[in-house]
């Protein structure tokens, strides 16, 4: 296990980002509250969301949730940033080779220096799901492989009953974005995507469609945090 929290660990960075931006925590939070609603922002800032997999989906979901002012994100991936990720994932060229959780937290700190970003550089397994995501209000499935998606879904729904899971399936190819939808499949299980286009069949995986699917996920997380359970 390699856990790092950017709330404490990067306190220096946090201060310098905030100082550079010539703003303080109060003005940032007030700006969010003006757009999202004061009471909603209190809920968002007290929430923890887990993101399993920090590729095309997970990195975009994390950006959205940081901008929404979600108080704490649990970021988990076992992979490092690769040059082949840059076409659709929220990493920068200078981050190639870095551990994804840490690289993503760096970017999130620049957007919202007041969030807490807990980073875990490890593979998600049935055994560690409760340890990693046990205190999350909502969990996002953002893996690449179908088998891993199924593994996480099965285990979150069994082991963390009552915690909503927002998963994604089917965003490969170059079809219209109108095929990407959000469906409530089971009481605590939401699925975003066209549920059909498999990267193994269609080959391509392009940024706008992946980002669109991630936006469906982030919006669903936002609504769930605010108590809206219907689609």
């Amino acid at each position, binding site marked *: 296990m390699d856990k790092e929290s950017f709330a404490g660990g990067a306190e220096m960075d946090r201060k310098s980002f905030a100082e550079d931006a010539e703003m303080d925590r109060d003005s940032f939070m007030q700006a969010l509250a003006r757009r999202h609603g004061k009471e909603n922002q209190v809920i968002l800032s007290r929430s923890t969301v887990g993101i399993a997999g920090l590729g095309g989906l997970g990195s975009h979901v994390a950006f959205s949730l940081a901008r929404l002012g979600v108080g704490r994100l649990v970021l988990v991936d076992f992979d490092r940033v690769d040059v082949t990720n840059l076409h659709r994932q929220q990493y920068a060229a200078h981050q190639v080779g870095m551990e994804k959780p840490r690289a993503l937290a760096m970017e999130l700190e620049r957007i919202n220096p007041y969030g807490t970003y807990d980073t875990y550089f490890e593979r998600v397994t049935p055994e560690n799901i409760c340890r990693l995501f046990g205190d999350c209000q909502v969990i996002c499935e953002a893996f690449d492989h179908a088998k891993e*998606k199924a593994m996480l879904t099965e285990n979150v729904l069994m082991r963390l009953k009552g915690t909503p899971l927002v998963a994604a399936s089917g965003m490969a190819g170059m079809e219209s974005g109108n095929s990407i939808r959000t469906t409530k499949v089971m009481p605590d299980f939401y699925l975003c995507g066209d549920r059909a*286009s498999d*990267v*193994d069949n269609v080959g391509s*995986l392009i940024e706008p469609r992946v980002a669109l699917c991630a936006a469906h996920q982030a919006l669903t997380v936002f609504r769930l945090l605010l108590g809206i359970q219907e689609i």
Partner: protein
Amino acid sequence: MLIVNGKEMQYSGPCTVLELLGRLGYRPDRTAVEKNGEIIPRAELAGTELADNDKLEIVSFVGGG
């Protein structure tokens, strides 16, 4: 009769959940199955017999993310 993903389906058992997945063309390692409101762990698909009036939700995943 079974209800699979909200649709009625004729049932003339005996049949396990794993066998049903095979008949319907699902790949068990890429699916999550809920029966009467409870998730069935992958390891128990082969040992879980279906009964008349069972209600199933079968979610199949494709790759990409």
